[in-house]
């Protein structure tokens, strides 16, 4: 089986089980971390764990690891677009308080 065999790559069961186990551990980690107040890191930690989980799903469950590079590019485009959506939205949220609200007339 080559690296570029498209849809026909068959993964051994132990990899599926390993991925499942990793996802479960990361889910438990998410819940566990939620009980601690990490200040501004709260969102950062939650999103990082979520991204790692998404990455594992993309690589193994969605077989991206074994597909042609054009599919990597396609998946990357979706991810980059999500990052841009988030970045522009957060740029609004973070700078809302920079100017004081106008005083009443």
């Amino acid at each position: 089986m080559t690296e570029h065999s498209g849809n026909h790559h068959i993964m051994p069961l132990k990899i599926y089980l390993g991925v499942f186990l990793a996802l479960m551990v990361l889910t438990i980690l998410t819940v566990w971390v939620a009980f601690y107040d990490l200040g501004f890191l709260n969102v950062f930690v939650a999103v990082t764990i979520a991204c790692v989980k998404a990455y594992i799903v993309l690589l193994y469950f969605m077989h991206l690891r074994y597909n042609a590079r054009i599919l990597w590019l396609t998946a990357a485009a979706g991810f980059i677009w999500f990052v841009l959506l988030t970045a522009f939205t957060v740029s609004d949220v973070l700078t809302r308080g920079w100017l004081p609200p106008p005083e009443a007339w």
Partner: protein
Amino acid sequence: MESGDTKRKHYLNIENTPQSWLLTLDHKRIGILYLVTILLFFFLGGVAAVLFRLELLTPDAHLVEHETYNRLFTMHGVTMIFFFLIPSIPAVLGNFLLPIMIGARDMAFPRINLASWYVFTAGGLFGLAAIVFGGVDTGWTFYTPYSSTYANSNVILAALGIFIAGFASIMTGLNFIVTIHKMRAPGLTWFRLPLFIWGQYATAIIMILGTPVIAITVLLVGIERLFGVGIFDPAIGGDPLLFQHLFWFYSHPAVYIMILPGMGVISEVIACFSRKRIFGYHVVAFSSLAIAILGFFVWGHHMFVSSQSMYAGMIFSILSFLVAIPSAIKVFNWTATLYKGSISLDTPMLYALGFIGLFTIGGLTGLFLATMAINIHVHDTYFVVAHFHYVMVGGMLMAFLGGIHFWWPKMFGRMYPEAWGRFAAIVIFVGFNLTFFPQFILGYLGMPRRYHVYPEEFQVLNVMSTAGASILGAGYLMVFVYLVWSLFKGRRSVSNPWCAAGLEWRVSSPPPQHNFKKAPVVDRDAYDYTDEDVYKSDYDSGGTSDG
């Protein structure tokens, strides 16, 4: 329609049972299915527009009260945008023409193509159900917290309809991208592609990258409405501006989903009726991609008065100005193409010229709206309504009609009556301007959108607008009547009635079931009108010719 037709078999007469249409995998038939479906929604959206324009004849509420009025303009917006404009050119002309224009026998995924029509129809049925069960009163923008908390109309049904129809859009986009990448005829390099294909490709990118966001956004509205999960409602921990960010992240690029395929049509028509290659072909092609990508980063200009940060507003304002550049490149290059061209003013060309003028007005007023200070003055007034309709109706709908007339002989093998076509195009142009130009003035004078009553001083301009809408409606009706008439009585068309360049004109009219018997070999650039004899010879790669 087929009585007395020649013995030649084509996609329309090869088999004509209900199953043969409803289970067809032929991209051409799927295009026709989409055409019939979106025309139904165009009619519904048009009826709503007629009713609220009649209400606006007088300053007081003589015809409908505010609740009905709100439902009417929402019905107009939702049906026209999600169920007519977005699928119009891609799903009808794109489906019909894309494989033929690149020398392929069908789309890359014919079953996904058919599935997209079923998914779209299912979404449309939810939209219809929302109307039948009393309508929606949120406006097509579904702003929270009104839509998620307070509205007592059929928000969930309409949102579900949009959610489902979005998947049809993604399927179409996916099919277009794969088909263009993988199924081009030998010799048909990227820079020999017709600009219509570049337009469809850019549109498909937006469909795939943007549509999931609107789908998840309306789903979140439903989740908050049904289960009280705090996403947009500040009372339960949400942020109402988050909705506007997510909504406009899709819905501003959606404007380009609607206009980019129209720009592709205009390039084809201008080249054919000027007998010239499009001036600056490469930059026109890349400007489609530039619009598709830049168009994703301008959404905040819808939110200048929403309490969005002023700094974010400045960035969005600058980016909005940037997207005007590739749009202007197209307009300048079309105009330059006309220079010293051998111009003939057939119906499609009249629509194309109308497009250039009206789109320019729509685009330039968009710059007014992207300027923060002016935006505050005209925000949520009729100025915005006029701007949007100059782009969508004056631009996109003119392009759609131009494209339908241009490829009508190819689609159905019949010519429409040219004199009626030209007359209707002029009626539509006049009616359109009379409808929407007064709205620029109304908005500038301060008349807010979405109100069913207004001060008496605005009545004259509103009467002009309603009168224009009547003329516009008569124009559309005229087009509908003579096109249906032409299906039965129109003069038969040869393969290439316009002597146009492009592979679609090398197959007979209507095209054979699988377009080409063998893949055509392309050995020239698009719009090579230097050797006119090639296009007059009416040869046919699809086997039989009806010339």
